């Protein structure tokens, strides 16, 4: 993708200190128009502080925020063309749904009939046309979420901020609402920055994700990139589940690398930037690993790229059945635990594995990620 145009939202070297502690530490990121950008991290990583600085509730200690080329640091929240959907919504309890949505429009001093038209349009957008007269406490959690969305979209903001948008909903409702929410945001075409600690939410909704830890952004990328090519141990470990092997580079060729770890020798079919002897981690996702009772066949060994590489043996110590897949814990001969997941493609699996069974596990040399930091 070429970046000819100036990015829509540009955050440069942003720092926020609370009593000398850096909650946000030198964050720079560029967000394009129309993106749904997720800030992902565990609680206390600084993602909410970053969002609050975008909304104008916190003043940065250092750094710049420009929206559409204009510097917005120092602009009070009520003058920013930015609206936020609050965590657990913060709907005004004394106002009806209609008045909640109209609140922002009235502050702009729009004519009455235009406000009415816009509120009706918003109610239709979130399919709550019949609920205008209700008070927030008379609505279900899902309905409140939609009112909050309608309220934050009513002023047609240039930037929409979502703070844990689905955090207050139960699991089933969350899955359905994710799709709905993305649908509505895309229909409106608003640029969106969301904060979440839930990686599923970030992965399924966002076009790009920034993984944050201790006030810094560790990696920015599309969900697939973050998952398949994490750039450090933290990201690999934080997103999804991963097996990590610690070792060092034994052979470094342009087309492949061999890494020695206590568990096995890894044949990696893509180059890395490194030198022989350098300590590295090899990350393998559980679903990339094949597990079977018998030793890999010649064809399978060829896929593992080289004889005896990328192959371990172990005993199944625990298994968790999830319906669509089963997760196995293998205790390897080295004493390490290997997580392997297997899709339950057939209803009655002939080759079903049992606890305490000794099994072989192997993977393709192209499916591992070598991490140096």
């Amino acid at each position, binding site marked *: 993708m070429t970046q000819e145009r100036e990015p829509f939202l540009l955050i440069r070297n942003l720092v926020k200190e609370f009593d000398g502690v850096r909650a946000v530490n030198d964050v720079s990121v560029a967000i394009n128009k129309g993106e749904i950008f997720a800030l992902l991290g565990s609680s206390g990583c600084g993602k909410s502080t970053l969002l609050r600085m975008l909304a104008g*509730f916190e003043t940065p200690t250092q750094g710049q925020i420009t929206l559409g080329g204009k510097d917005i640091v120092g602009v009070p*929240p009520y003058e920013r063309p930015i*609206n936020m959907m*609050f965590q657990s919504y*913060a709907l005004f309890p004394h106002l009806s749904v209609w008045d909640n949505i109209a*609140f*922002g429009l009235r*502050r702009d001093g729009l004519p009455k009939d235009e406000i009415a038209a816009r509120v009706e349009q918003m109610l239709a957008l979130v399919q709550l046309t019949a609920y205008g007269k209700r008070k927030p406490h*008379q609505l279900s959690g899902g309905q409140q979420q939609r009112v909050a969305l309608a309220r934050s979209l009513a*002023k047609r903001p240039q930037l929409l901020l979502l703070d844990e948008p689905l955090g207050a909903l139960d699991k089933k409702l969350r899955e359905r609402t994710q799709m709905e929410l993305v649908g509505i945001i895309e229909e409106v075409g608003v640029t969106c920055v969301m904060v979440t600690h839930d990686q599923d939410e970030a992965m399924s909704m966002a076009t790009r994700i920034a993984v944050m830890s201790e006030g810094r952004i560790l990696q920015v990328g599309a969900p697939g990139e973050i998952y398949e090519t994490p750039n450090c141990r933290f990201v690999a470990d934080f997103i999804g589940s991963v097996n990590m092997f610690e070792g060092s580079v034994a052979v470094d060729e342009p087309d492949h690398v061999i890494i020695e770890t206590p568990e096995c020798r890894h044949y990696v079919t893509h180059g890395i930037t490194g030198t022989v002897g350098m300590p590295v981690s090899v990350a393998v996702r559980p679903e990339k690993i094949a597990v079977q009772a018998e030793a890999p066949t010649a064809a399978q060994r060829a896929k593992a790229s080289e004889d005896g590489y990328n192959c371990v043996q172990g005993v199944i110590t625990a298994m968790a059945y999830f319906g669509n897949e089963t997760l196995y814990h293998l205790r390897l001969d080295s004493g390490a635990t290997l997580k392997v997941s297997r899709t339950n493609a057939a209803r009655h699996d002939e080759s079903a594995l049992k606890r305490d069974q000794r099994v072989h596990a192997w993977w393709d040399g192209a499916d591992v990620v070598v991490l140096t930091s």
Partner: protein
Amino acid sequence: MKTLKYLLGGRWLSGRNLVIAVPFLWLTMAFLVPFLIVMRISFTEADAGGNPFGTLMTLADGVITLKVKISNYLFIAQDDLYAITYLNSLKFAAITASLCLIIGYPFAYFMARAKPTVRPVLLMLVMMPFWTSFLLRIYAWKGILANNGILNHFLISIGAINEPLHLMNTQFSLIIGMVYAYLPFMILPLYANLVKMDLRFLEAAADLGATPMQAFWRITVPLSKSGIVAGTMLVFIPAVGEYVIPELLGGPETLMIGRQLWDEFFTNNDWPLASAVTVVVILLILVPMAIFNKYKAEQEARP
């Protein structure tokens, strides 16, 4: 024993009803029964034989005579003096409640938004005056407002005035005393309400384009409505019947119903008329309150 057990195990003596019974009994004994007694006295006439009030029902020659005397009420209705003092009482109570709200709201707001560590100190400062005798505090105002009092001395010494201002025994001194005495009763419920408020509502308002002033009027004030109502009631109701403050700080132009009651009761020794005056005061306060509560309950029940 069996009966007792039956009663204890039965519906009527369940733990829940016992808990409710305690305040219920208290209210009955301390408010309802005395009120009925006062009401009964108001319908009798002063006894010539030295009793301050007569009997309602007499049994003589096998005939029960029920004598309900309504002339006390007619007298109150006909004599302008009562109408004027009632209106005066309502007026001064309303002014007191309004001033307490105007002064107390910013005070309570400031307290509620202060650092959590500072709040108990501020709360203590509000309640501190209660540690001194109420009478003493009202007397102190006499010393401040009198012609040769502290305030006049000060104003003359800085050359703002030449002659002492006549402040004591005016509407001004009465209202100062009332507002001073009742202010904590306004601040405390307002504070209790404001301190609970979720500040994210104000952030949401700001986010939607409301300036801090708009957010205050559109969000903070409506959300603190129950505190405003509670504080206003707590000030207004006792202020209507206030006797001590008008007596000490008020003057001829501030005749209030409390004073009138005192005169009927202790000076004229006319218990029936004093009782009738009391009943009217209670009705004047209770009826609007009952209507207000009913309206409020209906509004809350509406979908």
